[in-house]
């Protein structure tokens, strides 16, 4: 094994190169991690992980002596493709081989140590520097991005106190050494309590906030000033403590007194309450209205998405079935649960429910209204949200609407008569359809309409006593026959005929306004009284007494016009027929209106007034009525306005800050605080400025100016109010006005 050592050495060198390469990658990655996180620990972990991965990827241990031999053979001509021999034990080799082995060992000796194993060290180095550069760039960008975002947290506000009045320098000011604020969110939010020192708090409604303040030096009466309300801290061993449940947004500050009774105030901090949003309910893939035929599969698939910011407590479907219509409508309400059980506290739920209308015992014509209601976990009263209302209707195919022919005050029309209006509509439709239908069809329909027109004419003809015409109506042959056999007037025959279709009330004497005229009896009387024929002859159309004279003439006109209408329909000229139909309709409407019966309404008839007693009542007992009232009116933001004026005086340095000023600024602050609740951020600066004026150090002209400016910027306009203005009336002016008046 001469020269084997060289090969081994080469193999080792190769492996070492690979390890170094892996190390470069690892260091590069580690550097990237470190630069991004600025944390050495993460950097080291990054290095370790990257090293392991790189080593496993490169697998330096896989470099065997065979690899080394192959590489040497390929790269060193001196090896003569026989360097493998060097590794073989001498005793396994033939003599020639031994010779060759020896030769190669000799030749390789000087060159082998110079042969460099294949490597990607350059690439690895580049990768390392690349990663580090990337890290540098990344950290630079992150810095840039984060700095505005973290601006507030980075210089997190601390509670600072300043004495209210200027103090002698020798006095030892108690110092705040520790602040801890704990925000305990309500249980249902499942948020961990937050510990902070930043006194500007933003939390969910109902959160419990605990302030712990530690002081060095003796203090007393540590209080919180929450929008004018003063709440005392309780003294504990560890410091001062106050806990409060968050119910409204606002501002607060702390005050305390030192042993000498000097007041100290902190800055103003905001307390922002975030309300728990009600859940969002969405129903997917369902139209607001669904219609079902009776024989359909009456099932609705209800897919609901419910989401909430802190978790859903419950959700269900409220379904209402309405049955019937008009006054007889009935409602039935049911609460249905979803198919899947509702896990409490989930933030997002997908719920399904199949609504089977049959299971709800719905019948044709019934309507189902339903919506989904969801509750969240807010305590004590949960937020409730509901979806839109959806409708499902099973169509009722057998509904029949009872239509009354509107042309006359009496309802004598059986269903199968077309009214004049209907005829007009049909005629117009026929005209419109003409290009689309065959000639034969058109003529057929036109003829049909002509027949209907005739029917209608005959119907009205009855009122005129046109009995002969009735025979022409094929549908009523039997009735006319009946009329003939009974030797009654045509009209009476018609009455009988209609009995089958209309009930007893449906005649013009519905309300018994006229004495009931019993035709049956009349008929008998007729037989007994031979004179009857001469006195009341129904068979003569001209003597029909159903309508007064003018009406009769009108009806006759209508019938004549109907004749014409029918004529043109029969001639297949519906266009020409249409004007006649309209004329007929108009006359019939007139007749209808004149045939209405109006009921006189009976009202209150006052007793007649005695003229002589009028306006002579005794008013002695009536006295004057006195009422006294007072309203305290104050201009809106009066204190604020006054504060601005006062600040102007202070700016001009015409007088110095006094106790009344302090009270004025507190009043102004309270006025603005009312308004500030809705927009805390806009007002925080103003309120802070006002409060700062309580501290002696802040009473400078610049501060006055700043507070004044801020106050002016948030102050609303004065309400409109008429006011008395002062004016000097010059004698010349007065003279002028007087002259003006005289010579007017």
């Amino acid at each position, binding site marked *: 094994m001469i020269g084997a050592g060289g090969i081994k050495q080469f193999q080792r060198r190769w492996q070492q190169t690979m390890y170094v390469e892996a190390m470069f990658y690892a260091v590069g990655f580690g550097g990237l991690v470190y630069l991004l996180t600025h944390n050495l620990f993460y950097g080291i972990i990054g290095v370790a992980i990257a090293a392991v991965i790189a080593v496993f990827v490169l697998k330096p241990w896989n470099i065997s002596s065979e690899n080394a031999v192959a590489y040497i053979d390929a790269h060193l001509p001196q090896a003569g493709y026989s360097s493998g021999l060097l590794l073989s034990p001498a005793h396994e080799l033939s003599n020639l081989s031994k010779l060759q082995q020896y030769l190669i060992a000799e030749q390789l000796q000087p060159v082998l140590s110079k042969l460099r194993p294949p490597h990607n060290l350059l690439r690895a180095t580049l990768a390392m520097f690349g990663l580090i550069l990337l890290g540098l760039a990344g950290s630079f960008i992150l810095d840039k991005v984060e700095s505005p975002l973290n601006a507030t947290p980075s210089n997190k506000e601390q509670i600072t106190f300043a004495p209210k009045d200027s103090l002698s320098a020798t006095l030892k000011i108690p110092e705040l050494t520790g602040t801890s604020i704990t925000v305990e969110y309500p249980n249902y939010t499942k948020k961990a309590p937050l510990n902070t020192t930043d006194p500007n708090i933003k939390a969910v409604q109902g959160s419990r906030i605990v302030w712990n303040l530690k002081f060095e030096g003796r203090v007393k009466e540590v209080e919180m000033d929450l929008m004018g309300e003063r709440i005392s801290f309780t003294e504990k061993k560890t410091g001062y403590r106050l806990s409060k449940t968050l119910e409204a947004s606002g501002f607060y500050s702390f005050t305390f007194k030192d042993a000498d009774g000097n007041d100290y105030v902190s800055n103003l901090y905001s307390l922002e309450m975030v309300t728990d949003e009600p859940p969002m309910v969405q129903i997917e893939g369902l139209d607001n209205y669904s219609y079902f035929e009776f024989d359909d599969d009456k099932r609705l698939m209800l897919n609901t998405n419910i989401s909430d910011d802190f978790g859903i407590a419950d959700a269900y479907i409220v379904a209402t079935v309405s049955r019937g219509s008009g006054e007889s409508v009935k409602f039935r309400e049911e609460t249905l649960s979803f198919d899947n059980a509702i896990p409490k506290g989930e933030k997002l739920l997908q719920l399904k429910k199949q609504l089977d209308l049959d299971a709800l015992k719905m019948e044709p014509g019934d309507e189902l209204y339903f919506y989904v209601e969801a509750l969240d976990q807010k305590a004590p009263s949960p937020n409730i949200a509901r979806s839109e209302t959806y409708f499902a209707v099973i169509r009722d195919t057998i509904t029949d609407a009872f239509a009354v022919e509107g042309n006359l005050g009496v309802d004598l029309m059986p269903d199968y008569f077309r009214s004049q209006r209907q005829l007009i509509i049909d005629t117009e439709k026929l005209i419109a359809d003409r290009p689309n239908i065959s000639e034969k069809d058109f003529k057929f329909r036109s003829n049909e309409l002509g027949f209907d027109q005739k029917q209608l004419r005959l119907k009205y003809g009855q009122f005129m006593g046109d009995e002969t015409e009735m025979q022409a109506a094929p549908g009523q042959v039997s009735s006319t026959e009946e009329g003939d056999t009974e030797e009654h007037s045509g009209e009476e025959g018609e009455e009988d005929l209609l009995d089958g279709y209309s009930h007893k009330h449906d005649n013009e004497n519905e309300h018994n306004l006229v004495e009931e005229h019993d035709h049956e009896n009349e008929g008998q009387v007729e037989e007994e009284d031979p004179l009857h024929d001469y006195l009341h002859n129904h068979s003569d159309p001209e003597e029909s007494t159903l309508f007064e004279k003018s009406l009769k003439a009108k009806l006759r006109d209508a019938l004549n016009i109907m004749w014409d209408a029918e004529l043109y329909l029969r001639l297949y000229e519906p266009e020409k027929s249409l004007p006649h139909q309209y004329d007929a309709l108009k006359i019939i409407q007139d007749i209808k209106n004149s045939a209405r019966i109006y009921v006189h309404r009976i009202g209150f008839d006052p007793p007649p007034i005695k003229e002589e007693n009028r306006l002579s009542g005794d008013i002695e007992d009536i006295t004057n009525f006195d009422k006294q009232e007072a309203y*305290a009116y104050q201009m809106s933001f009066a204190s604020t306005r006054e504060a601005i004026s006062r600040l102007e005086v202070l700016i001009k340095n015409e007088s110095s800050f006094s106790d009344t000023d302090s009270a004025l600024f507190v009043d102004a602050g309270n006025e603005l605080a009312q308004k500030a609740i809705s927009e805390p951020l806009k007002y925080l600066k103003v309120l802070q400025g006002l409060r700062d004026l309580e501290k002696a150090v802040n009473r400078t002209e610049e501060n006055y100016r700043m507070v004044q400016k801020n106050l002016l910027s948030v102050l609303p306009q004065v309400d*409109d109010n008429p006011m008395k203005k002062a004016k000097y*009336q010059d004698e010349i002016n007065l003279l002028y006005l007087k002259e003006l008046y005289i010579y007017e």
Partner: protein
Amino acid sequence: MSDGVVFLNQHLLWPVVLIGLLLFVVFVWKEWSQRKERRFWVKFVAAFSAIVSLVMIVLKPSTHQEATRGKAIILTEGYRPAQLDSLTAIYKRIPMEEYTKGRTLSILEDADSLFLLGHGLVPFDLWQIQDKSVAFLGGKKVGGWTAISSNRNEAILGESLEINAKYSNPKIGHLAVLTDNGGNPLDSVPFEELGEQVVTFRTTPKVSGEFVYHLLVKNEDGVLSDEPLPLKVVAGEPLKVLLINTFPTFETKYLKNFLTERGHEVLARTQLTKGKYKFEYFNGASNPIYGFTSENLKDYDLLIIDTDSYTGLGRASKAAMEEIVESNGLGVFIQPNESLFRLGDSNSPFKFNRDFLTEITFGELEQTLQKYPFTFQEEVRTQEVLVDSAAVAAYVPVQMGKVGTTLLQNTYQLVLDGNEPLYAHIWTQILNSMAKEQQNVAEWSSITKYPRPDQPFEFELYTALNDLTVKTDEGEAISLLQDDLMTHKWTGTQYPRKTGWNQLQVSHDSIAPFSYFVYGRDQLQSITKSETLKANYRAFGKTSSFAASVSATKKELVPISPLWFYIVLLLCMGWLWLEPKLVD
């Protein structure tokens, strides 16, 4: 010349003439013995001439003569060098002097025809050259603010204030901004490329007191100029209102609510039946009123009365009301109904035209309101009250007071519609225009518009009071000059020492102190320059040429040299002395 002989010692005329006559008589008497001789008459004439000469020596007769002195140039701030060059080219070796504010011009000693170049002399120096012949040639154009005025002397809290300002040489892209005393912008106007632009700012003061608003000129880079705009904002006082109705209406009810809730003292009287009334006293009103007397009406600022009550007023009540309106300034607001528009001239101060419109629209939200289908007839005395540039009401001044009415009806509908601000706005405009104005005992006004420290500030005080002493902040008394025609007008001059607000106080308690704003030297320079320019134009007119017409004949009284009289006297006396010697 003949018309121009004037005796300088006119007051001595008669005594001197008498003495002269006496002397003459004595002389004649002394020489009477020689009356038959010729020499008597010669002596007579000589003596007369001598005495006349003597008289003339004493009386100093003088004549108007053209004064002729030299020309000179006075250079003031803002003169154009080119103009000066052309002038010196025409008038070689013309003397000139540069003018400094407040200093006497020495050149005036020997020059009386002056070329005045530049913006001119400040008004308080004008006296120096008042009697000279001055050619005012003007100077460079003044750039910047050249005039600022406001629609009121004192702004009223909650009422709109309009400030008009003129800017010379504006540049496009620049912006004029009005800010309040804190520096919050209130209104702004962009400049256009014009020689001179008038900008109007509108704002409503929110706070009463003495403030200094600012007038800024800005471009994108920032503030170019910042000029102070002093503003005194005063708050009004609540009104005392008497409300008379024959029967209750919603209109009255809501108007009453509006007034009482805003703190006005209201006495509302509604008739219940014959002679019986419902009295409502709000915010401290007291004492029922049945018939009007000048005694019970004089405390009220505003009488709101419905048409039926107005027309149904008794003779005495009506007379009392009119008297109080005329002498005391009571405002009367007549609540209209249909019959008001049909009243004759004798009963109603208004005249109407029918316009058949029953609706009127206001505001950005297009709120419509019902109105009576009439408009006010335009008359000299009728003053319309505009709301959103629609005449909704009008009043007629009746000496000190006003009588007014409105065309609107059912305005309470606005309150029902929830548009209370518009309701308040309309009624505030209407009632403000009619309510009595409180009588001030005095009024101040400044004649010097832009006072500066250590420069005269002239002011006027109008008051009927006498024995006034005005004191400055420093406690020094200022004497006032009473106008001899208008005895109520007093003028005074003060030399303020500090910039900013200054006060003048009056010994009298009832007169409120007068606050005026003194501008710093570098504030509103342009406006002062333009004021100076205007004052000089007013004083000297405008001259555009350098012609010598400048030395307009300026006549002066020049006494006739007494030498002539002495010679005559000497000759005459010599003859009188010599003559006896010759005769002898």
